[in-house]
């Protein structure tokens, strides 16, 4: 071995105490490797800014069109925020509880018990219901106390739309979970990202009419859009728009059927390819 080769680690040791550009670059390189290896992680860099731009851009368009309807706009915004959070928490209950089993390396323990896939799903769905009840009551009470916005006064008419949002959350939560199971922990950000893919097109904070005309048919195809439009109709004092509720339900039936098929198929792939074991890694 040459003396130069022997001297290299010594020089590295001499510089160990201070700030090292090499070490900073090494840590940066680790992140670059991670981004290069994961398309999902890379997409995240553009995904959130684009979603924010879409939501806040459409909301700005809506606000600009309002003429003296400030109180109602605030009701729509707060109502939309509360119902969105209900939807989001219910979806999270499913995908994040699955992730928790992965993070704690408990998934194999669960799947070597006599638990069936249907039982596993049912437990996640019920957790979603529990979270919806807690989140819905908490946010409604806080909105009443802080902004004198009383969601409870709309009471029963809102229930068909809240229930539809719960069904949508179940469907999207199952699809998200299936994708995490299929693509592994690298896809875990999908648990948070996928619901926000629906947000700009679900007319959460503004009516569908704010969206460009070419996007509206796609928006109406989402059960979440129907639910938020229904919410706005109720909050504006109209009778329950049963047609909208009916469309939301029909679209949810399709979504849940699709998510069930996707989950069952991915579970089969997981058992065929040993994905359950790899997730425990």
């Amino acid at each position, binding site marked *: 071995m040459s003396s130069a080769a022997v001297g290299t680690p010594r020089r590295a040791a001499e510089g160990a105490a201070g700030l090292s550009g090499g070490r900073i670059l090494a840590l940066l390189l680790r992140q670059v490797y991670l981004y290069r290896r994961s398309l999902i992680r890379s997409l995240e860099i553009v995904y959130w800014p684009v979603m924010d731009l879409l939501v806040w851009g459409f909301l700005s368009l809506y606000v600009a069109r309002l003429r003296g309807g400030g109180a109602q706009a605030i009701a729509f915004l707060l109502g939309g925020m509360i119902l969105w959070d209900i939807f989001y928490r219910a979806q999270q209950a499913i995908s994040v509880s699955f992730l928790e089993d992965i993070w704690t390396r408990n998934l194999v*323990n669960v*799947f*070597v*018990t006599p638990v069936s896939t249907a039982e596993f799903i049912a437990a996640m769905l019920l957790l979603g219901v529990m979270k919806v009840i807690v989140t819905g009551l908490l946010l409604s009470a806080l909105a009443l106390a802080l902004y004198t916005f009383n969601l409870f006064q709309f009471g029963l008419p809102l229930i068909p739309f809240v229930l539809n949002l719960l069904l949508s959350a179940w469907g999207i939560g199952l699809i998200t979970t299936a994708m995490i199971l299929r693509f592994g922990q690298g896809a875990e950000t999908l648990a948070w990202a996928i619901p926000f893919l629906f947000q700009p097109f679900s007319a959460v904070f503004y009516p569908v009419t704010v969206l460009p005309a070419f996007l509206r048919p796609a928006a109406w195809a989402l059960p979440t859009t129907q639910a938020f439009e229904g919410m706005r109709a109720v909050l504006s004092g109209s009778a329950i728009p049963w047609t909208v509720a009916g469309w939301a339900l029909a679209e949810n039936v399709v979504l849940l059927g699709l998510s069930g098929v996707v989950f069952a198929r991915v579970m089969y792939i997981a*058992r065929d390819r*040993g994905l359950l074991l790899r997730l425990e890694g």
Partner: protein
Amino acid sequence: MHAIPGAAPPTRSGVSAFGAAEVAIGVEHLTKRFGTLVIVDDLSFHVRAGEIVGFLGPNGAGKTTTLAMLLGLLLPTSGRVEVLGLPMPAQRQRILARVNFTSPFVSLPGNLTVNENLTVFARLYGIRRARERIAELLDRFGLAALRGRSTGRLSSGEATRLGLVKALLNDPEVLFLDEPTASLDPDGAERVRERLREIRAERGTTIFYTSHNMQEVERLSDRILFLHKGRLIAEGSPADVLRRFARETLEEMFLDVARSGSAAS
């Protein structure tokens, strides 16, 4: 069928479709491929009820893959698996209610207490009088004082013993263990082996386990199955296998297989 040394303890298993009574695990022509890679290659073996069988082989031999197929976590490419006379995976739920599994590489949620974790699993197995069962097992494995402790705060030895408590909750007829003493010091490992012998003697439990500790395998196993590149290369009691391959210890044989790919004497 292989002769098993010593008197067989009373067993609780039924008659297998493999034709032999009291077969706890039956594997016939089992193969698992991932693409062109053959991980388990036409593997056949039987484990009789009440036997303690060590499943050995170097890393990548196909042990974990086989274990996963026995537990219904992985679908075979071809071949047949039967546990307690029932086909896996067709009767997955019925089988899994009567067997259990633990591994130091699989954990229980660290943010739950020992008691909370065991209560959840007792319910998953539908155990009656779960509280008494949990208390009895915690006491037996010296974990009674840790009942209220967060599982994440247990030492690796305590966590391994907790895994065994979890695996015994449903009084399994077949216990699958993946390197059950891997994270234990020699004293802890010996205590675990004692408990396993006791459980087999008392309940006639079939124990099928993987290990890289060859001394342990020699001491604990009635029979060993030696796997290499997905194929069974040796089968029998540890003494029989050593005699057949003209080796002094299983460790010697293991090293020969791992380095040269052959145990031929």
